[in-house]
């Protein structure tokens, strides 16, 4: 499904600040895998997602998505297959467009059969309302409100819907609930699980909540220094506790996990 081989990227090349952020990173995902990614601040989690989405091009290595080599494909072209959510709920939606207009744009990802001069039809609106209703946030009655008027939680739920309106081959979530208040966080997390399972979407989810990382999905990657230093499979996720994770981290890296921003559960 997704195969990464020897990904490497460094920033500020040729300066004194040159920093290798991903080094020789390889892994493979099967169709329907739901992987949670944890690791210290600066271990390269966001950079990995940026490389997969095409925001950054890697210096070397290969990315195969769905048997297609996408290593050098520009971001907007990969977006047809990849859905993405960021920590900042403002990043995924256009604030001056209405809810319906935002959803119509997301719908473009199914592109190909849309005429550029077609407009949002009554049927589209009905479809959008149905899907919004499933979010259970009362957004189905606000199709014509500007998205800028919605709360952070509502905007993030909408972004989630937009990223999955046409189920993507791969969904990338980068601490997408971290900026929300606890109630909205719970809500968006539940929605994520529901939508990903319903459509069997292959998904990489970065989180700093270790317990949630263990509870969610069928695999977990622990990253440090731009590498995956160990991985947990489905069995291990069920049996291991957060404490066990810390022990595994020490064994793999020879030091304690810096836990300033990581929730130990």
């Amino acid at each position, binding site marked *: 499904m997704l195969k990464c081989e020897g990904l490497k990227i460094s920033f500020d090349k040729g300066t004194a600040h040159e920093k290798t952020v991903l080094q020789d990173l390889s892994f493979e995902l099967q169709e329907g895998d739901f992987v949670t990614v944890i690791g210290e601040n600066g271990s390269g989690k966001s950079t990995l997602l940026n490389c997969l*989405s095409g925001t950054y091009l890697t210096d070397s290595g290969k990315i195969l998505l769905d048997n297609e080599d996408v290593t050098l494909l*520009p*971001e*907007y*072209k990969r*977006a*047809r297959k*990849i*859905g*993405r959510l960021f920590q900042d709920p403002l*990043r*995924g*939606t*256009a*604030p*001056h*467009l209405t809810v319906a*207009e*935002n959803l*119509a*744009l*997301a719908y*473009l*990802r199914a*592109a190909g059969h*849309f*005429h*550029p*001069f*077609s*407009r*949002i039809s009554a049927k589209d609106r009905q479809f959008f309302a149905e899907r919004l209703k499933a979010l259970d946030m009362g957004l189905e009655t606000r199709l014509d409100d500007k998205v800028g008027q919605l709360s952070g939680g509502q905007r993030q739920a909408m972004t989630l819907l*937009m*990223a999955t309106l046409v189920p993507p081959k791969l969904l990338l979530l980068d601490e997408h609930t971290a900026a929300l208040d606890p109630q909205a966080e719970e809500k968006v997390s539940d929605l994520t699980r529901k939508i990903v399972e319903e459509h069997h979407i292959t998904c990489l989810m970065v989180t700093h909540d270790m317990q949630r990382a263990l509870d969610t999905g069928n695999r977990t990657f622990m990253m440090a220094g731009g590498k995956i230093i160990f991985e947990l499979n489905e069995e291990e996720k069920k049996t291991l506790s957060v404490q066990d994770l810390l022990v595994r981290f020490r064994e793999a890296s020879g030091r304690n996990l810096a836990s300033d921003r990581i929730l130990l559960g």
Partner: protein
Amino acid sequence: MLYILETALRLGLFYAPIPLALFLSYRILNIADLTTDGSFVLGMAVSVSIAALGHPFLGMLLGMAAGALAGSVTALLQTRGGVPSILAGIITNTGLYTVNLAVMGFSSNKSLLKQETVFSLLKKLIPGEHYEILIGLFLIALLCLFLRFFLSTRLGLSLRATGDNIAMIRSSSVDPDRMILIGLCISNSFTALAGALVAQMQRSADINAGSGIVTVGLACLIIGETLLGKRSLTRNILAAVTGSLFYRLLYALILKTRVVPVECLRLLTAVIVAAAIVIPYLQEQAAVRRRREC
């Protein structure tokens, strides 16, 4: 007085495509497009030169096409060449000076003597003496309807989102470079249309006629938005036209009453535009400062 109103109405309509163009580039795409001055003169030059050959309508169309071409140069410099957007406009504008001279046969102005213009031809079809205003009204209505329709299509939505949240548009699998190209082509063809109309109306094109047009256009846009508000797309579009009419009225009144010397009008225009952008910014800053203090 009636004459003043008529003149203002006529000029307001003929120049209205410029604030409409800037609505598209500046408000929707968030690009300050300095190609505008050059595109206006390009429209003038092409329209007069082709009309001189006996094809006034073709002159209009080719003028618009030339404007679109100029817009595409700016867009490509910016998206494919890594030139910052303001500089891209300035570069194109500088180059256009020579192009415009060349179109007019390397002379700094070109006049139509006895040749037909779109106005002299249409005059035969439209009864009454207000045929110029009627033509202007018809054209502007057409442009407004086109813009309103276009911006609610999926292509138009993609364009609007490009200016609103470019990261989001990339992740919707739309190529923002293409959106900028399409947007600047349309906006510069509008600007060139204004030039083409004005030139055939006054039967001449002048190499310097475009200087400062972009600031005047922005002033029109801002005045219109102040008068009508910017709550909906329809309102935004009508605001651009209203602003253009109001500006020309103001211009005509000042010309007549001389409350302000005509030579100072450009300065006044510049002050209006600067103030309209600076004042809201300062208000925001003051609000932040107040919050810091308490």
